[in-house]
């Protein structure tokens, strides 16, 4: 089987999310990578070095600078004439593009796969990860998004794929990019952080969130996450949200502070290796999944913890 992997990138650097998708694709067959962008030659070179990738297709065009799905999907659909499976990371970019490709190909997409059981059978989470479904597709071509935490990352060195240019139909004239507000941070990205410190509604305000959570995260070199309640209350921006409909994370250590542990939040973090919970409510559901729990007022316990680590 010939697979086509959508490379996640910002026109300069390839993102780690790509590497888990390469691993999933390599379980299906030959791995080709696709870089859609503008001025994205360096990304093509990085993708060519990923172990397991044999060919990199680079579509470098102004209309693809922001990977607008209206422009990207027709190009991918055309490339799928000579590939059997399209795999994208289950990131907001992948989720935006892949279903559009699937519909153009008249294929039912398989979202957020956790494992490849055979060339037509996969497992995927449903009901916020409270159930795992095994699904078999009857479609000849496959369109798949891949959960990044479920597959090992392919090595970024060791490959020597050939790089080929491809051209698309250009601007579909349906959409245009206006602007982007991307948080610039020295902090590790949530989906690749080794340690995550996450705060909930109990923090009470954005000032307190900053005052209590940030110093601990700084001390640990951790990424910062939040529950939906904390995001909805405006303590932190939307891209901090961990959960069923936010980011799915699986760090070495996840420290949940003032988070009660709604099923929607647990769906986003329960695959973390070690879960630590600090909450003053001893009946909070978060303690049912935590490896280490501390029943305490977070405003006392967290500063003390920050001082002692």
């Amino acid at each position, binding site marked *: 089987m010939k697979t086509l992997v959508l490379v996640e990138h910002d026109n300069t650097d390839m993102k780690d999310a790509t590497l888990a998708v390469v691993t999933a694709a390599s379980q299906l067959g030959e791995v080709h990578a696709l870089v859609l962008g503008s001025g994205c030659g360096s990304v093509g070179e990085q993708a060519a070095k990923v172990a397991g990738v044999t060919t990199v297709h680079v579509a470098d065009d102004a209309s693809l600078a*922001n990977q607008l*799905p209206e422009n990207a*999907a027709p190009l991918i659909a055309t490339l799928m004439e000579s590939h059997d499976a399209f795999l994208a990371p289950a990131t*907001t970019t992948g989720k*935006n*593009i892949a*279903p*559009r*490709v*699937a*519909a*153009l190909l008249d*294929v*039912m*997409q*398989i*979202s957020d796969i956790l494992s490849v059981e055979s060339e037509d059978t996969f497992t995927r989470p*449903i*009901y*916020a990860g*409270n*159930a*795992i*479904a*095994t699904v*078999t*597709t*009857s*479609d000849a071509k496959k369109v798949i998004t891949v959960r990044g935490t479920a597959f090992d990352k392919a090595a970024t060195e060791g490959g020597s794929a050939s790089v080929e240019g491809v051209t698309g139909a250009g601007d579909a*004239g*349906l*959409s245009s*990019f206006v*602007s*982007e*507000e*991307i948080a610039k941070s020295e902090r590790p990205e949530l989906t690749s952080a080794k340690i995550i410190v996450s705060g909930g509604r109990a923090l009470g305000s954005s000032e307190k969130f900053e005052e209590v959570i940030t110093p601990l995260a700084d001390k*640990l070199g951790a990424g910062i996450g939040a529950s939906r309640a904390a995001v*909805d209350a405006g303590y932190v921006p*939307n*891209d901090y949200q961990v959960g069923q*409909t936010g*980011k799915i994370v699986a760090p*070495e*250590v996840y420290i949940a502070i003032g988070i009660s542990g709604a099923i*929607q939040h647990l769906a986003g973090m*329960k695959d973390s290796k070690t*879960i*630590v919970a600090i909450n003053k409510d001893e009946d909070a559901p978060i303690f*049912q*999944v*935590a490896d*280490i*729990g*501390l*029943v*305490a007022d977070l405003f006392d316990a967290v500063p*003390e*913890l920050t001082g002692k*680590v």
Partner: protein
Amino acid sequence: MKILVPVKRVIDYNVKPRVKSDGSGVDLANVKMSMNPFDEISVEEAIRLKEAGKAEEIVAVSVGPQKAQETLRTALAMGADRAILVMTDDEVEPLGVAKILAKIVEEEAPKLVITGKQAIDDDSNQTGQMLAALLGWGQGTFANEVDIDGESITVKREIDGGLQTVKLGLPAVVTTDLRLNEPRYASLPNIMKAKKKPLDEKTPADYGVDISPRLTTTNVSEPPVRQAGEIVEDVDALVAKLKAVGAI
């Protein structure tokens, strides 16, 4: 301008789903069902656009069993003008739903379709994007803010790194994210009024599209259960534990 709002009847947000012991699926017997939370946000947004004078009519649509009528009545009670139920007891996949919706769009000619970014039962996150592809329309997914200006719509989208704003020509498809708005509760008088609003019943056969499933679910199982660990006494004990597991 007319807005079409597809809504889905799903397990209530607050219910913990139970996997059936025979592995055939999730037990939905006697479980509270509600409108998919993201679809509530879609209905609310459509109503706000109407209240702002940017839309004249809101049509709610659902593809599902007879009981999805209740979900449509909820949309009508919130403020939708009329509803269409495409009745089927079979499970229809996102691709099938998108094909039915595309036919309804042909008949109804809305300028805008607003729907939830994902349903909280199958967590697919596909229908809106597929519908946009089938119609050849632009798509503004994971909307945090929308603004209609004449023949175009500006959508601020929630993306992994922050926010992205795109401009789409109308007609277009928008899928909603959590921060777009806070849906209203239907008032009792509006719930009563909703009972008199028109609700058309159709079947998938009326639209002549092939919605036979492409995927077969062979097993549904419980995820591995995490065992509760240990409650420590104080911060010193927590630090010791963190050191023991090599976290710090």
